[in-house]
């Protein structure tokens, strides 16, 4: 065993390999800056579940290495482990956390009864199918591409702005009838929107798409000021490798 950056590790083993060998407890693999990783972190914090965050260095291609691919065969973050169960896909991980830790933290996050759960599933699918694609494309083009010194594609930006605008029009109507998307309580649905919306509002000049719509703006203000999300944003600001 040697000490590497304050941790005891077997010589020649990466942080990832060491973690894989370590004992139980909830583990999330990936950088907090990743929208999908932050979705899982938000959920864990809402449910008051203790976890260990294992950094994965995307710039160094750690997510494409064999050890990581065993956890996530598409080579994407996050990966997740709990009591020997290995999962991926942020929304599947969130559903698992909500079911397993149903009695912790925000008990109503995944619905309190059959009907509220059906509504949550409906809007979670809507988020995944309708909100996520255009908002992800815009987050990449407008927030990440400049930082990574990649060329922006104006055509892609315009196309996805139009798509996102249509989705937000639907949300504007819905949020005039309902405090949160799936119903009158904050749920996994609203949480699922936070990662992409956060970048659009804070890291691009398209925040108006949210704030200029009355009901969407009101909703955004409420969900983004939740303590759990504020903690995620703090984690995103932490120095790399922490």
């Amino acid at each position, binding site marked *: 065993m040697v000490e590497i950056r304050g941790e005891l590790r077997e010589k020649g083993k990466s942080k990832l390999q060491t973690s894989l060998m370590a004992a139980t407890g909830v583990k999330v693999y990936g950088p907090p800056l990743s929208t999908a990783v932050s979705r899982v972190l938000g959920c864990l914090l809402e449910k008051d579940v203790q976890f260990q965050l294992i950094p994965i260095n995307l710039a160094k291609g750690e997510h494409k290495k064999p050890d990581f691919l065993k956890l996530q*065969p598409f080579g994407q973050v996050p990966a997740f482990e709990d009591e020997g169960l290995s999962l991926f896909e942020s929304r599947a991980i969130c559903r698992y956390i909500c079911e397993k830790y149903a009695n912790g933290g925000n008990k109503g996050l995944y619905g309190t009864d059959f009907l509220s759960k*059906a509504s949550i599933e409906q809007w979670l699918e809507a988020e995944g199918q309708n909100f996520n694609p255009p908002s992800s494309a815009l987050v990449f083009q407008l927030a990440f591409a400049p930082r990574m010194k990649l060329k922006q594609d104006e055509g892609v930006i315009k196309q996805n702005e139009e798509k996102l605008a249509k989705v937000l029009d639907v949300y504007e*109507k*819905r949020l005039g009838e309902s405090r949160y998307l799936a119903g009158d309580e904050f749920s996994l649905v609203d949480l699922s929107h936070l990662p992409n919306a956060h970048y659009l509002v804070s890291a691009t000049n398209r925040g108006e798409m949210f704030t200029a719509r009355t009901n969407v703006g009101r909703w955004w203000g409420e969900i983004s000021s939740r303590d759990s999300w504020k903690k995620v944003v703090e984690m995103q600001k932490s120095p790399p490798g922490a």
Partner: protein
Amino acid sequence: MATIKVHGNALSTAAQRVMACLHEKGLPFELVLVDMRAGEHKREPFLSLNPFGQVPAFEDGDLKLFESRAVTQYIAHAYADKGNQLICLDPKKMATVSVWMEVESHHFDSAAAMLTWELAIKPLIGMATEATVVEENKVKLAKVLDVYEARLAQSKYIGGDNFTLADLHHLPSVQYLMTTQVKELFDTRPRVSAWCSEILARPAWLKVCALRGNQ
């Protein structure tokens, strides 16, 4: 008068997904036709059922839902004791099914739906196929199917040892793609090919195909 209604049509992959689920559970339902060519889905009263203006919309008594994968999950849970089991009661096994449902939804479907649209639907409605879109999405789909080939070496069905919603959700696109040049991507991967043959042969799926006027 059926309690369960599916608003859509027999050609829509998303509507087929819901109907396959209903047949697996042996539940009677009414298919209420939505005239998409006339833009019925973009107007009231349809928008009250699905504000995104997409098919299908679903009713079960007073309950109204949209998003096919939310509808199938509702059906599978609400009618867990009827027909074929489509979910796992064990939470860890269900979490794994949930993973592969997300994989279908985010990795498989994006490429498969584009290819289905370009190669299977556009010709039916007299629109021209875009070759670059086809090539791009074939490359994407091939990568997903490589992951599936490896997965099916460890697991009999995509979500685990039993047929579940994770497999069912693939049926509509796979059926269409098997009638196109994309069939080759499936045929050249033995485990994927065997899995497809098996799930496409399920009686519940054959009933959905019959509605389309397919063999």
